[in-house]
């Protein structure tokens, strides 16, 4: 017998929030109890059509809703207030904005933190795409510099994401430091106006000592396969080159399944990761018997 699903709220009915709500409707351990925005919008009307309860009351509507999990898909600037309002409630807060003040988590790398922590940060779509292969590579070398370059299709990044580029860079950098231990990190991000739009693309370059090329390549390929098989079917390791202390890892991420346009791999990976972390949290709560 399945335990009753945990009730989740989504703040921010934008590109990320709407796709999240849709994913929640397909989860066996989570249910979308509320989508909250700050004013009436096309996004909220779409969430309503998905069968979700909606509110224009923003965070205030969420705190009174009795949910177990909150996904924050608003903006880096709005996140601190959401965190403050939810801190005392014993609610799991999964932050998809690049505010970066929670525990940075990627499901296939350190997903177990979702069992014990109540404030998780996805960091960014770029961090979610880079973390699995970077963490795998860093187990087989000692990186002293890591650079991550991400390119997303313009149409896959909404107004909040476009305003939050500085936070995206800072928080992606923090994630890269956490997952590689590199003392120096550089992040560059471009939004591409090209049509037809290209898939989300992330290139990570490590300058490292003591690399073991064969073990490194094997570990990176395995890590990419785990993401592809368990999380994002459109996750593809396009290149893994190891030459003279310079390691280049290139990943393309496409959305699959027809709900999102194929180029929106950035939306797919951050949302699939957020839901996977919340599901792991739900499973742990069920085991502890505290739904």
């Amino acid at each position: 017998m399945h335990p009753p699903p945990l009730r989740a709220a989504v703040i921010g009915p934008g590109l990320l929030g709407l796709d999240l709500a849709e994913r929640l409707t397909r989860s066996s351990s989570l249910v979308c109890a509320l989508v909250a925005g700050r004013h009436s919008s096309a996004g909220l009307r779409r969430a309503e059509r998905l069968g979700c309860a909606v509110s224009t009351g923003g965070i205030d509507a969420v705190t009174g809703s009795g949910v177990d999990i909150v996904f924050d898909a608003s903006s880096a600037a709005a996140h601190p207030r959401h965190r403050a309002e939810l801190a005392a409630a014993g609610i799991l807060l999964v932050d998809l904005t690049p505010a970066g003040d929670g525990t940075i988590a990627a499901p296939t790398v350190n997903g177990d933190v979702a069992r014990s922590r109540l404030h998780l940060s996805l960091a960014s779509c770029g961090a979610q795409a880079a973390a699995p292969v970077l963490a795998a590579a860093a187990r087989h070398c000692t990186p002293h510099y890591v650079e991550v370059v991400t390119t997303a299709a313009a149409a896959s990044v909404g107004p909040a994401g476009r305003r939050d580029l500085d936070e995206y860079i800072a928080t992606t950098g923090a994630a890269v430091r956490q997952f590689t231990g590199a003392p120096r990190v550089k992040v560059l991000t471009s939004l591409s106006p090209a049509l037809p739009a290209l898939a989300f693309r992330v290139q990570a370059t490590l300058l490292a000592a003591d690399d073991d090329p064969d073990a490194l390549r094997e570990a990176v390929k395995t890590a990419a396969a785990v993401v592809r098989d368990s999380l994002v079917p459109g996750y593809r390791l396009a290149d893994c080159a190891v030459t003279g202390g310079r390691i280049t890892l290139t990943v393309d991420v496409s959305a699959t399944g027809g709900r999102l346009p194929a180029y929106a791999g950035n939306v797919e990976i951050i949302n699939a990761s957020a839901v996977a972390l919340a599901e792991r949290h739900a499973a742990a709560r069920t085991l502890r018997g505290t739904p």
Partner: protein
Amino acid sequence: MTTTAHVILHDATLRDGQHSVGHRLDAGQLRAYAEAANAARVPLVEVGHGNGLGGSSLQIGQALLEDRAMIEAVRDVLTHSRLGVFVAPGWGTGHDIRDAVRAGADVVRVAAHCTLGDTTERHLALVRDLGAEAQAVLLMSHMADPGRLAEECARMVAFGAQAVGIMDSAGHYTMRDVTERIGTIAAAVDVPVIFHGHNNLALAVANSLAAVQAGASVIDACARGFGAGAGNTQLEALVPVLEREGHTTGVDLHAVLRAADTAEARLLENGAPTTDSAGIMSGLAGVFSAFRLPVLRAAAEAGVDPLAVFTELGRRGAVAGQEDLIPEVVRHLAKAAA
């Protein structure tokens, strides 16, 4: 259509030129040219990594000097000319802008790809808050139609930009393209309009003149055309051309010719940029000018035709900042040829 009598020349030699020497200009080189440009009464001298603040990276090229060191190298010799910096959000950040203004930047150009003007909102507001002049430019502008460019420019004016315009980052335009785009933008905004040309089709000076005739009043130019790819609009040629067409620039012709000679002697380690076959193909394909050297290098290593690489990059819609696509396209072509 209103054309202005006075044109403000924006000297990008020490920023765009960095692309053609791997961002390796040293403090002595920066200072020597800045001094000469200042003596020629060039209104503004821009300095920095080729992709601007925060651009130094493995992806685009690591600069010899930090952003702040480049600004400091020229700050005190610019007694007449204002000091400009360039920043594209996503590559550089608000933190970089604060540092640059603190180090003495008078004008900050905030850039976005052609349809992404909204990424400049916070950075333009920051520049205004810091008391520097805020300008905004759209990169890779050939990828958007004139109406869309004008809409984005108007949006950036609303964000606080005190001058707005377009860069022909790929050197793709002919004069008709420029006239149509600048005319549409000039009709949509009430601040000075900027044009930045590249010489891939040997039209940079002609395009800049067309821009002025269509209503632009801030024109970017570089000594000897020292800039990415096939080079930029040649400053010391543009000055007399504008004067002959009835526009004033305030620049001293003889002194700017001497400044260009200084650039040739001190900066142009790889010779003056030329409109060669790679440059023409790159411009036709609409590829970011600064891809020139990495494409030529990667194509030579793999034994593939660089012209085919430019064509394929253009077909994929590669934009500035996507240097990581170059090795992939080269591998793809090498495999297809095998």
